């Protein structure tokens, strides 16, 4: 995995940090802005940050693979919103999310920045990520259980002429 902006730590730690940030982004991207912000308020209302560039909505071309496992092709576009925030310490966080919700992209970027700040990492994990992860896990389990109820159980009919 490519790593950037981590010149002050050794490669391995930086890579581990990226894996963690990616995992957090996966959870945040599936959450609602309101729920992320509710958690962030518990982390602390007074976090100061600036936005090095304005929040922006654009498109990404969504790619599939030919036959599901072949060469890539362009399946169609999707709306994406991106944000960047910078903490007073200089740490930069990014938010990239499907859709057009500026508030959500900014909240995700703020979480990403705080996760890289030693004073905040645990608090974000506890107040933002943990409840979101739990809710998403419950939703997934429920959806999977509903789907499982529609699994076909085949049974073989014993035909009379075979019984002899």
């Amino acid at each position, binding site marked *: 995995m490519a790593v950037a902006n981590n010149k002050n730590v050794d490669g391995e730690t930086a890579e581990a940090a990226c894996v963690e940030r990616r995992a957090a982004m996966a959870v945040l991207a599936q959450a609602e802005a309101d729920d992320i912000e509710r958690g962030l308020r518990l982390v602390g209302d007074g976090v100061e940050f600036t936005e090095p560039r304005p929040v922006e909505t654009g498109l990404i071309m969504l790619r599939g693979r030919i036959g599901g496992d072949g060469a890539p092709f362009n399946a169609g*576009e999707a709306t994406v919103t991106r944000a960047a925030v910078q903490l007073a310490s200089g740490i930069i966080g990014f938010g990239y999310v499907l859709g057009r919700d500026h508030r959500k992209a900014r909240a995700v970027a703020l979480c990403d920045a705080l996760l890289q700040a030693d004073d905040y990492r645990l608090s974000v994990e506890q107040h933002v990520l943990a409840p979101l992860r739990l809710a998403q896990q419950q939703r997934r389990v429920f959806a999977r259980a509903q789907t499982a109820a529609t699994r076909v159980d085949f049974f073989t009919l014993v035909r009379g002429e075979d019984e002899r």
Partner: protein
Amino acid sequence: MYVAVKGGERAIENAHALLADVRRGDRAVPELSLAQIDNQLALGVDRVMCEGSLYDRELAALAIKQARGDMIEAIFLLRAYRTTLPRFGASEPVETADMNIRRRISATFKDLPGGQVLGPTFDYTHRLLDHALAQASEVPPAATASASEATFRSVTDLLADSSLIEAEDAQDGEVGDLTREPLSFPAGRDLRLQNLARGDEGFLLALGYSTQRGFGRNHPFAGEIRYGEVEVEFFAEDVGFAVPLGMVSLTECQMVNQFAGSGTQAPHFTRGYGLAFGQSERKTMAMALVDRALRARELGEETGAPAQDEEFVLSHSDNVQATGFVEHLKLPHYVDFQAELGLLRQLRAEFAERAADNQISDTPLQDAAE
């Protein structure tokens, strides 16, 4: 010839106000919300996203509302909207193998890892109008059952284990994009699939049907159809790694078709592929049939059927282009028509003149015949 015609501004303005009025309809009836359209007309939203070639449920719902339910008009609105946004780049290819499955069926194998899971489907319903739905009703929650951790290996993967099916070439080369470069022929399979993915469902359905009826037969089996959510990742330069952007709903269809082989290659099944936004099963099945039909030449099959004609299929699949050209006929063509009218009058005058000449010379002959 095009000549600007002025006038009619007031009429146009009032027509648009009237459109807004009838769109709202009877004010005593509650107005539709976008959430209602998204939730309760979800498959319509899916279709507009697919053919509008833009994944955004809320925008598709808005387009349906604005278009009064006219799907092609809604698709047009979405296509127009996308041109107003910058493109950040392309996603990593989505992994449909890792899909959170909501439905997965196979018409080729009864028992397969993960099983046959019907999910929310119209299949096996009786297609009788349900008058209970005419009233607001309490819907009981759907049943649940314990889910196994079994993964849903794809049918093509299972067939590939014993080399019974052709393998796709997974080379990540340059990916064609018909929104950037106009289509030229012959088109690679990547461009053909992009075209079909945004193509009109009705057009593809008719073409797919035509192959089944004998116009380019390719002996298809629905090897697998799966619908569910997949994660989208985007490599963001500024972040430095592939960022998960969230989940999208997709439907995928793997058609398994009759054999190919050669002196150097053992006979094996061939494949047709369909992929579409949302729960779009009919669309992906039709797409897979047409994808396979368009491979006829590559596979050394007899060609000549409409569904095998790449230029014909790809040039007429886009309903926004098609509606633009058909519907432009209703715009003022006054000057064109005046020219035609002038020409027709001249032809008629010449005809009358010739008829008059003939009559003079014909009369004695006619008399003689009598």
